[in-house]
């Protein structure tokens, strides 16, 4: 919690600065002619508070980010020569041990040299913590005095404060872009390291997936196999089952809500169906494991079929239930957007309601419905918990929904849960799969949104 001390200091000083600034501005106003201030006293207060907080926080933050690296290099410099001459990998391990010791995690009694380095680390950390607090305090005080001295009746305090606030909001809005780039960079960076070991072609077109790398280099099959085709086929199989369940049910529900149901019935049913989208996926997963999978296995056994206990069918059906509202709500919206006049025209020519729906409403709403299906598809491809718990781990290359399959998301989870070493292709392959998933869902969404948008422009 010592790291919060500088922050606390700065906040207190900023509050003091605000009050001092406001009082000073009030004093200025009472001395001069009435209405002599350009801005309200509270803006003068905020102006002083900003001067006191921003420079101090910026420097303190930079210090806190840089300090561990500076300390590390100082500790390395102070190590005895024989330790410094270690290869880079071993030196990293050693530095990690020293850091853990300094944090108070003692695994085994350290050698004298390591103990000395640990003591040095602790001393440097203490100095750094004290230093950052002192610098923050000094900068905040200086900023406060500086800002207060600049207060004059003519000061355009409001404009300056507003510029600062607008800049801060602009900064916030770039976070979305930074997040996207963060996702792309982190996935790309690790995936490229993976593709150095496993060529892209082998990854995308390989038919064998068994990421277990052997412990010893001379063991059989030590390289592992990283062909993603079984995972892609498995994902598609589960998704197709889901769409076969959700498609007809969702579409029929949408047709009922948009064409047959009275407004009050529709206003009740739609939110109730949307509850299905709000239930956490882990709950669906439990439902699949507890109820649906045993049911399918028993029914299959009675029919003489061999259904795996973790079948693609069970996972797909439950996932289908989850995505019903994606299809029903969106399709309902687009069918409602079909102009009244088109329906009335068809009805006036003597067609029944169902003929109107089939011949007029559905064709007119088709692009939007296709968009809804694609969004549901993308959602199902990226869905994780249901398949993790209900679809299993066996990377079978099969299109039989009664077999166990595995999916891209399941493999990401299995590869990354637990301890990982970040130089083995096993761990890195998860990022390659993540990149694949990200690219595919992004493409699906862009296309789906494009279709929905183009359709909207047609009637508005």
């Amino acid at each position, binding site marked *: 919690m010592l790291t919060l001390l500088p922050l606390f200091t700065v906040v207190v000083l900023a509050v003091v600065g605000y009050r001092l600034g406001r009082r000073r501005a009030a004093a200025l106003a009472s001395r001069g002619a009435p209405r002599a201030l350009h801005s309200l006293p509270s803006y003068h207060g905020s102006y002083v508070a900003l001067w006191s907080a921003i420079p101090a926080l910026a420097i303190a933050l930079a210090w806190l980010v840089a300090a561990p690296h500076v300390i590390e290099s100082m500790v390395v410099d102070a190590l005895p020569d024989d330790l410094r001459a270690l290869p880079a990998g071993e030196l990293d391990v050693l530095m990690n041990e020293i850091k853990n010791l300094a944090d108070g995690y003692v695994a085994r009694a350290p050698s004298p040299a390591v103990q000395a380095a640990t003591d040095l680390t602790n001393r440097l950390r203490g100095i750094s913590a004290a230093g950052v607090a002192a610098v923050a305090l000094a900068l905040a005080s200086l900023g406060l005095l500086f800002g207060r001295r600049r207060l004059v009746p003519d000061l355009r305090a409001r404009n300056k404060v507003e510029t600062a606030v607008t800049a801060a909001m602009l900064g916030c809005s770039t976070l979305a872009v930074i997040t996207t780039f963060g996702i792309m960079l982190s996935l790309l960076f*690790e995936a490229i390291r993976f593709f150095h070991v496993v060529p892209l072609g082998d990854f995308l077109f390989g038919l064998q997936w068994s990421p277990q790398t052997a412990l010893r280099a001379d063991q059989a099959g030590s390289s592992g196999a990283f062909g993603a085709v079984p995972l892609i086929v498995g994902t598609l199989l589960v998704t197709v089952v889901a769409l076969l369940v959700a498609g007809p049910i969702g579409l029929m529900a949408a047709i009922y809500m948009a064409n047959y149901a009275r407004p009050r019935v529709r206003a009740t049913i739609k939110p109730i169906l949307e509850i*299905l989208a*709000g239930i956490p996926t*882990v*709950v669906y997963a*439990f439902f699949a494991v507890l109820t649906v999978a045993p049911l399918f296995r028993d029914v299959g056994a009675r029919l003489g079929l061999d259904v795996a206990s973790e079948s693609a069918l069970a996972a797909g059906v439950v996932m289908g239930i989850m995505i019903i509202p994606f299809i029903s709500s969106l399709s309902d919206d687009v069918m409602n957007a079909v102009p009244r006049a088109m329906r009335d025209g068809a009805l006036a020519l003597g067609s029944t309601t169902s*003929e109107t729906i089939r011949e007029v409403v559905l064709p007119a709403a088709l692009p939007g419905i296709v968009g809804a299906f694609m969004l549901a598809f993308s959602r199902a491809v990226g869905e*994780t918990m249901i398949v*993790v718990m209900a679809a299993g781990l066996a990377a079978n290359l099969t299109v039989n929904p009664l077999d166990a399959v595995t999916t891209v998301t399941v493999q990401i989870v299995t590869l990354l849960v637990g301890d990982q070493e970040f130089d083995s292709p096993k761990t890195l392959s998860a990022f390659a799969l*993540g990149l694949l998933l990200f690219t595919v869902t992004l493409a699906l969404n862009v296309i789906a949104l494009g279709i929905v948008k183009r359709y909207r422009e047609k009637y508005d």
Partner: protein
Amino acid sequence: MTDVLARDLARARNPAVAARRAHRRRAAEARFRAASVAGTAVALLTLVVLLVALVGQGLDGLRATRVALDVAFDAATVDPDGTGDPAVIAKADFNALVKEALRARFPDVTTRQDRKRLNGLVSSGALYELRDMLLDDPGVIGTTQRVWLPASDDVDQFAKGHIDRAASEAERRVSDQEIAWLDALEADEALQTRFSRIFFTAGDSREPELAGIRGALVGSLLTMAVTAIIAFPLGVATAIYLEEFAPRNRWTDLIEVNINNLAAVPSIVFGLLGLAIFLNVVGLPRSAPLVGGLVLALMSLPVIIIAGRAALTAVPPSIREAARGVGASPLQVVAHHVLPLAMPGILTGTIIAMARALGETAPLLMIGMVAFVVDVPTGPMDAATVLPVQIYLWADSPERAFVGKTAAAIVVLLGFLITMNGVAVYLRRRFEVKW
């Protein structure tokens, strides 16, 4: 040609043919309508089945079986020197008290193996309850008290009827001998299944009868706090900037496209981001609610921004023009007039985003929040788990008794989600202004 047309027309005018066709079309209409009603009904029915199955199991998991035993708080075992010092009492061999009480209840059990089985009826957590009881009231030392102690998970499952008495002995987890003991206890009214507090007061445990959701609840609370503190201000600031201040240019378009796409990125990808950036680059601790909160904040941001923008757009321009007219600066217009009017809508969107984040599991698996954590976390840097992950962990446990626990945890989670969504709906109904 005209012949064909005339023939068709004549046939169409034939009353019998027309009636048949009308009948066919009406039947098709009825079929189509029935199909649409059936689709809706199936969807609603699945929801009901899902909820009934889970709530039924969950109520089962909230109850636990207890065994009443006459425990003799023998001073020689508990506090041999008569010190009355809590530190001495806390270290006493309470297990011996439980064993002694069981032996007194069933004196005819003699063989070592049978005794071991007999002791297995009572949960290993019973000694802690006895200890707390003595520490609360040292006066019971030297007396014999009838105490309700938690039963082991197998006894619990048997008492709830999940173990079939008729199955052959090798196929069930409770032996004939144990059933005989339990029947004897039952006849004494010394076996009871009732609502259990342990579920809400204990952390996770390997023993189903001792496992609770306290740790996961606190973990969820801490994670949600971090998420809200980060996502709400950032989301609102972004929404205000984009809606009220941003110039229409390429940069703004890029931001908007990004936000829309981020809203559709699978949640597990955010977990990969958290693993690569927050853990490996920044070096934050694994399993910490702080990291979980950061990841979920990034995930909820787009939702909050989109809801915030919708709420801001709903405020009519006349409000802004009037404020500008009396001399407010652009920022004052937003801060004093637009934002307060849009706040209910923004809050509604934020609560819905938080509800989604509360139910999220996959990204938290990536950053190590799946550890088996017994202690209730006390701060955002402690190792912790959250409710959905706890559900995942319990659902993966082989013991039958964890099924009830899992469902009970799901009921608690759904309770939170329904409450949050209810608050959101209330806010919308109560404060929504139609302009």
